[in-house]
């Protein structure tokens, strides 16, 4: 671990304290992340079981997004490792197939239509082309908007298109960074129900959100906070 000047100190608290055990779908051991010479978190371990919904909470800059990016393998931690079903995510064969990551950026090209964007994403992720992609979009309240460039949709509609991925790809692990941003109450409700069903059907979800997600009964919370020394 790199030594970092003690400007501020971040710590992660766990409620409840997770133990790595053999059912774990995803587990992270002793992660340390430094950004711009500040320690965002250190010695952070967590474990996610089938059926878990883990809600990361914390103020802006606490390192929630950094943690999610490390968990999916987009960034590398300064120390520590992330395993999917006890295999390192870099070596795991089916991690990519079993993961849906939806980040801050919606991964929608503004010049392409919703259908084109999602079809491309599905092909890239090896999902056989679905004829019911139109149905999914209309269920998400996007009927009639499938064929216009994404740049002409509102922020909330774009977010709905991005979240349509949850309906398209069958995957066990969902990692969602602020999925509810710009969504209206109905859409938030729909996504929360989808997450809950997913967890009940043997999946797992990690999300960050500043909105309360109190609808869910089996939700676990990890609070990341920082303290000034």
């Amino acid at each position, binding site marked *: 671990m790199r030594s970092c000047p003690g400007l501020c100190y971040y710590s992660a608290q766990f409620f409840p304290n997770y133990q790595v055990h053999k059912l774990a779908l995803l587990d992270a051991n002793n992660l340390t992340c430094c950004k711009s010479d500040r320690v965002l978190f250190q010695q952070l371990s967590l474990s996610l079981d089938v059926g878990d919904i883990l809600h990361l909470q914390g103020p802006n800059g606490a390192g929630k997004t950094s943690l999610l990016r490390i968990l999916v393998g987009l960034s590398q931690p300064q120390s520590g490792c992330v395993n999917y079903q006890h295999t390192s995510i870099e070596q795991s064969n089916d991690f990519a197939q079993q993961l849906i*990551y939806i980040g801050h950026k919606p*991964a929608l090209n503004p010049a392409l239509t919703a259908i084109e964007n999602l079809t491309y994403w599905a092909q890239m992720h090896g999902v056989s082309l679905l004829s019911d992609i139109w149905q999914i979009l209309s269920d998400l309240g996007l009927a009639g908007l499938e064929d216009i460039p994404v740049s002409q949709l509102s922020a909330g509609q774009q977010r709905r298109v991005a979240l349509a991925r949850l309906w398209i790809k069958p995957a066990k692990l969902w990692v969602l960074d602020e999925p509810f941003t710009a969504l209206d109450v109905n859409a938030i409700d729909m996504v929360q129900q989808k997450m809950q069903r997913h967890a009940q059907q043997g999946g797992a979800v990690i999300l960050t959100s500043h909105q309360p997600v109190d609808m869910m009964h089996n939700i676990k919370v990890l609070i990341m906070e920082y303290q000034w020394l």
Partner: protein
Amino acid sequence: MVVSTLNAVFKRELVLAFRQKSELLQPVMFFILVISLFPLGVGPGPETLQKIGPGVIWVAALLSALFGLERIFRDDFADGTLEQQMLSGIPLSLVVLLKVAAHWLVSILPLIVVSPLLSLFLNLTSAMYTALLATLLLGTPLLSLLGAIGVALTVGVRKGSVLLSLMLLPFFVPLLIFATAAVEAAALQLPYNGQLALLGALFLLALALSPVATAYALKVSQN
């Protein structure tokens, strides 16, 4: 599965290029404008033009390639498509290779297509033009392949385009020297196989190494 995915990548690049026509036209317009201004600027003497012609065409091609280069990864990086691509399990270097190929096809091939007309402006003989065409066909893919590494390294940096030009131009200098040397040899009716072989060797080396280096640079930029 990989083949159909790569097919989708290629198709998407082409669709995007044709949706954003202004960006597609920019390099070729720049190329035509620069070259057609030269006879006005240096005077219409046929011998002068013939002497500077190959160099002018190559420098113009190089600069216009540099302008359009950022397009390879800029949008995909900004909107998050690149993240999704990395998480898809498809080898990133293959995706990179296809993106570079598509980029060459839509922003550099048009330059080569209009080059016969421009070599008429500059009074190149047909032997010189043949040599020029051969160097352009071998050399411009090298521009795209090397450029992709540079773009991948600077895509996460704000105002990366200035850095990109500074970083890439030194690498393009050998290409420029060999290419114009080949055309000069052709003008003197000397064989220019040697220069072409060198360009070909550089191209193959870049083809083998650049996709891997670019994929790695993109991963670093994500970090």
